């Protein structure tokens, strides 16, 4: 009887769970140019769910910086989040007047997603990625005056 109840509870707990299985080469050929990053966590709740795994950089179109960030959902549940990149020149100035638009993304349980962006100008030398929990999931009206942001600086 107790076993049945426990099984039922387990089933109910995992009703919204859907995780991802992956396969990849054991000896990968790729040689990524990893970026060492520092993180400023202001939303540990989001960090407990969506965590930064690796950051890779490359150059495209001759002189434009491209950044790719690997994010993993550490939970077994689907989650939505927002993100945006900002770009800086060698003097620390933002290379465009306005920041890049916030973009939305989502991850299934235990899924790894890759978000990337290309710098808007050859002058861009550094980047910053901001991650923000979906307002739709944290605030019904999306009117929170204290957005729980997390930044990742190179």
């Amino acid at each position, binding site marked *: 009887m107790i076993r049945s109840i426990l099984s039922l509870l387990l089933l109910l707990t995992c009703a919204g769970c859907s995780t991802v299985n992956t396969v990849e080469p054991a000896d990968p050929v790729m040689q990524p140019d990893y970026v060492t990053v520092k993180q400023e966590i202001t939303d540990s709740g989001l960090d407990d769910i969506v965590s930064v795994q690796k950051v890779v950089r490359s150059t495209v179109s*001759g002189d434009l910086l491209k950044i790719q960030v690997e994010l993993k959902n550490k939970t077994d549940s689907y989650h939505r989040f927002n993100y945006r990149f900002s770009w800086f020149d060698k003097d620390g100035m933002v290379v465009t007047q306005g920041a890049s638009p916030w973009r*939305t993304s989502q991850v299934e349980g235990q899924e790894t997603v890759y978000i*990337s962006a290309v710098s808007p100008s050859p002058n861009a030398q550094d980047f910053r990625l901001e991650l923000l929990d979906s307002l739709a999931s944290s605030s019904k009206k999306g009117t929170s005056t204290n957005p729980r942001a997390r930044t990742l600086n190179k």
Partner: protein
Amino acid sequence: MIMKNSTITLSFLTAGLFALGGCNTGGDARYVDSQGPRTIVSVDEINIQDWSSAADQMINSLLSSGILNRSPEQPAIMAVSVIVNDTRRHVDTDLLTKQIRVALNRSGKAITTTTIDVLGPAEDPLAAKVSDKRPPKPYFSLSGKIIEVNAQAGDTKQVTYVFQLSMTEIPTGLAVWEDQVEITKQGSRAAIGW
């Protein structure tokens, strides 16, 4: 005379009431960042953030491809051709193409000619008319289509907006870059924040 004074007093009182009303109407209108996540999400129309997201993905794809470096002249000269709107709504496709043009211009990889007429007058008819020189021939042409796909399950509506773009290399007539961005929204009614 008394009547005139009463009219003036009444006018001032009315104006005062209107002025006070403007101080606190109980309304909730406010500015939000049009690039931020506090905008409205509609199920049945392309929101401002959808245009930005589609343009941003297209820009990243285009710059990552490196095809703009194929032009012998740098920055490459590009013309915007036809973007077909195959959705149920009237939309201004400049909301997509202008962001792409601005980004390519800032990147130093491409500039857009505004003096070539495609289906109507040139974007800048004055420059096209008074320029002594023949307009520079573009090396690339940007064209595309926006498609809408709908589905419904009970009260839940789903709409997918498919943004398709092609960059044709004019000397060869070949589409040297193509991409498709899909934005899918699901729900029963509009919401604030995403």
